[in-house]
């Protein structure tokens, strides 16, 4: 038995850098040899992760009695860059579109040795990864953020909107925004309200499967998004993602209508309250509904915004005290109410108090389909009397984005209410067809 203090072998081994080639021997003479790879977050105590010659990774529990030796003299670089030197897209005349990257699955890749995910930033790297991007014309890459979409905040919507306007000003014919899918619906709605006088399409796109997978939807979504970005009929903010599980059909959703309706499916994005604007079938862009036409521009950002807004999902058991605390410091609160737009009668107190002090309280439905309607039940009538603004068939997220935008435009609650209820980006459906839109 070794006299070495229990932790020593482990301490030394766990301090080895990635890429070192080691041989570990247990007291019975049995050996493991492989390359050190980064420790997994959920690996057990004293477990060293090794990549074996066969390519498999395994974990070896390092007991104090184990011995080890290094089989190399210096760390083997696990990966050595072999990319072509970066070359910017060729300058010159001709139509081009821009790809604005913000982070998220579509712009991240897995390190093949470690399994860790890292964002892709370099223009050349992105074009190498998605050679099909340039298939239908020139594409310029404009990095904006490098964050997962759940880390984006409303102030980022404004920054992104400014970048879109500037890129149009620089001559882009259309713009694709690569975005994480989790909050892509929020950003799409916010850009719809913030951007005006668009000379071409603004197409948000994401991926539900990371691009390092052969089955990633990123490449085909991007290709479809680029097709849409080239379409001269469109002058509004849209989202292009898979229309079903197949890789050859994509839906074009209006930015204010779309919601991520599934945690993992490729076709998670769905237009609510009606069909999407159109589809991309293979390379063919088809529009089934009237879209906002492009204008001469220049594109502008109709800011500013005010982030003192909240979105509150009503549920049985929500105490008025808790709701009232939520509303503190808010200039506007969007409620996702039940059914036609209801909350418990006991909520009326804090709502009356909030509207009395100038907070705009707006109602949407957590059904995520259909209009809110205050006159059918007494609760609705009470809420209306308390000053709640009813927002038709707006999705709660869209209503929240609109609230952030509207609060930035006026300090007068009545004016804010008017902005909220007035159609700005085609967000309200005037009629709801009989077809199940799901």
């Amino acid at each position: 038995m070794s006299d070495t203090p229990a932790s020593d072998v482990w301490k030394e081994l766990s301090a080895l850098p990635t890429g070192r080639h080691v041989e570990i021997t247990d007291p019975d003479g049995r050996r493991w040899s492989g390359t050190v790879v980064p420790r997994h977050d959920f690996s057990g105590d004293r477990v060293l992760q090794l990549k074996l010659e066969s390519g498999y990774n395994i974990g070896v529990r390092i007991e104090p009695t184990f011995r080890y030796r290094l089989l190399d003299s210096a760390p083997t670089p696990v990966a050595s860059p072999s990319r072509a030197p970066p070359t910017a897209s060729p300058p010159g005349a001709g139509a081009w579109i821009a790809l604005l990257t913000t982070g998220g699955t579509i712009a991240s890749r897995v390190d093949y040795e470690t399994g860790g995910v890292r964002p892709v930033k370099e223009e050349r790297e992105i074009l190498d990864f998605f050679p099909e991007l340039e298939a239908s014309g020139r594409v310029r890459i404009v990095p904006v953020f490098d964050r997962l979409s759940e880390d984006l905040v409303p102030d980022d919507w404004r920054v992104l909107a400014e970048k879109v306007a500037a890129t149009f000003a620089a001559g882009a014919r259309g713009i694709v925004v690569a975005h994480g899918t989790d909050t892509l619906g929020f950003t799409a709605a916010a850009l719809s309200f913030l951007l005006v006088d668009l000379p071409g399409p603004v197409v948000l796109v994401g991926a539900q499967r990371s691009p390092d997978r052969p089955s990633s939807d990123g490449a085909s979504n991007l290709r479809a998004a680029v097709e849409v970005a080239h379409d001269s009929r469109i002058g509004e903010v849209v989202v292009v993602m898979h229309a079903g599980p197949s890789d050859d059909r994509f839906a074009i959703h209006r930015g204010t209508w779309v919601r991520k309706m599934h945690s993992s499916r490729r076709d998670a994005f769905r237009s609510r309250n009606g069909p999407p604007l159109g589809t991309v079938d293979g390379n063919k862009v088809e529009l089934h509904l009237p879209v906002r036409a492009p204008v001469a521009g220049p594109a502008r950002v109709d800011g500013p915004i005010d982030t003192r807004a909240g979105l509150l999902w009503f549920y049985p058991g929500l105490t008025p005290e808790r709701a009232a605390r939520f509303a503190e410091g808010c200039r506007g609160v969007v409620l996702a109410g039940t059914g036609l737009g209801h909350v418990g009668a006991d909520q009326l107190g804090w709502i009356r108090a909030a509207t009395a002090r100038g907070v705009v309280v707006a109602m949407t439905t957590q059904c995520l389909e259909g209009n809110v309607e205050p006159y059918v039940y007494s609760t609705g009538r009470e809420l209306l009397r308390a000053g709640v603004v009813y927002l038709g068939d707006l999705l709660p997220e869209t209503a929240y984005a609109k609230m952030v935008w509207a609060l930035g435009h006026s300090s007068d609650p009545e004016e804010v209410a008017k902005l909220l209820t007035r159609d700005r980006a085609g967000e309200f459906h005037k009629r709801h067809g009989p077809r199940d839109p799901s």
Partner: protein
Amino acid sequence: MKAGLEVHQQLAVGKLFCQCPAELTEEVSDAFTRSLRAAGGENRSVDVAAALQASRGLVYRYEAGPSSCLVEMDEEPPHPLNEAALDTALTLALMLHARPVDEIEVMRKIVVDGSNTSGFQRTALVAVDGVLEVSGRRYSIPTICLEEDAARKVRESPGEVTYRLDRLGIPLVEIATGPEITSGAEAREVAEEIGALLRATRHVRRGIGTIREDVNVSTEGGHRVEVKGVQELRRIQEYVEGEVARQKFLLELRDALLRRHARVPSDPPRDVTDLFREVPSGPFAGAGRGGQVVLVVALPGFAGLLRSPGGHEERLGRELADHARSAGLRGLVHSDELPAYGVTETIVSEVRARLSLAEDDAFVMVTDRSVERASVALRRALDRARAALEGVPGETRDPLPDGRTRFSRPLPGRDRMYPETDIPPIPITAERLRRLRAELPERPEELEARLARSHGLPGEVVRQLVYGDLVGRFESLAAKGHPAGLVARLLTQDLPSVLSGREGVPAFEPALEVLDAVLGAAEAGRIAKEGVPTVLGALAAGAPNVEAAIERAGLTGFSRDDLVALVRRVVEANAEMVRARGEAAFSPLMGDVMREVRGRRDGREVSETLHAEIARVRSQATG
């Protein structure tokens, strides 16, 4: 020669990463299409096999049904690994005296032939350094892995491959042996032993396609070639021997080519479409129309060597055609097989003239509507021809039903695995191993000894039960009180005789209750032992139950009295012979009687009755 095996066995414990049943199904409720891209690894070249597959630009269609969910559709992350499957893999590891790893990390192995919707197969190394003893020889078992099975290919058409998702995700245990096998017969024996060990766990799926073997064969001066996906253990020997012969042939062919100074030029292909405009039928009909081109390249020194020199079964021409096919073409035509396919002697001469070919020179040509695809196909064929000058190319080959093999793709490289980030590492605790060690199933040899001991069966019959995967049914039927000998005969002789006579018909797998009833009828004397195969045949042909089968087989209504009457009739008809030859008349008369009895009475009863009747007639004669 040296050979190593990789045995893949499906487990019957549900799917590996979801809760779908591990059952194949003909029910299809949804279909969708995908394309796969060879994802570039982090700063490394795309794997050669992966690139080849992806370059084919195929569309993959998937059929989903009751045995698949969003996980198989690659629309949902994998669920936690199936613990029962891991227990089975660990049990095998312990039975093979292997060393389980401390922490399992599930890996993604890039596979872009469409057989995995994700574009990779999930696989995990469970244990290493095992050992297997077969007929006194020791074979190393370097690795035991647990992985998910691929989707099942159901159709293929130009540009599209259809897979069904039912098989995707069924757990597979993969047991690899070291390259220590030295003959086809040995390979078969090792495979059978591994098969018996797997079945000993009682957690494996049964039937065609539930066990598949990859055989790695290399010969002196040759190269490692992997024959992938042999489904019948008993044919391993054939494929190993076939591959050894093929490698020998390729080495001889190389020598012949080198003697002739054969070479493979890198000139671009020539467009000879104009020569084929008048070809009325065959693959070249339509040349010049709708963009269809004919491209040709010369192979100096190859004439006569593309087709079966010395009448050998293998042909270089076929290998070239298989490589051309990998680019999505129907095939390729070479000068050794011309004139044929509507290509006349005149056209051949004209092609030869245009390429300025000498007598020893050959040419190969392809036709397609896409110049690009045709060029790629020719390039692949030329690469293969170039490899012929070196000898045996390392590659993966598909087994064919006739015992030959066919090129499927180059050997995959090693760098095609990376961690499955959706599954955390799985610790293998000492406690888990203790529990599994305490519950280890009976090893095949122990099982053999026990069956021989407790049922008094001969060794050969016991071996057939153990290695023929029949122990489960044997023990169930014996436990119902049926005599062991009768049950063993039913399973090892009567059933196989029915099955082998029904080629092309879906396998006849009678339920245990049916076999129980057949045995019951035999024991009660309602049918004779000899009548069992007839009854099984009637069941296989669709008889709804055992009673109906006995009826249909015409085995009813032949009583003891009927037998006595029959025997009396036969003996009396031959009374003269009986009187003349005495007991020696028994054999010919027994044959006559049995023909008429047709298994309706037990053989021994027939023989006793006949003996008695002969004795009676003789006693009358003397009396």
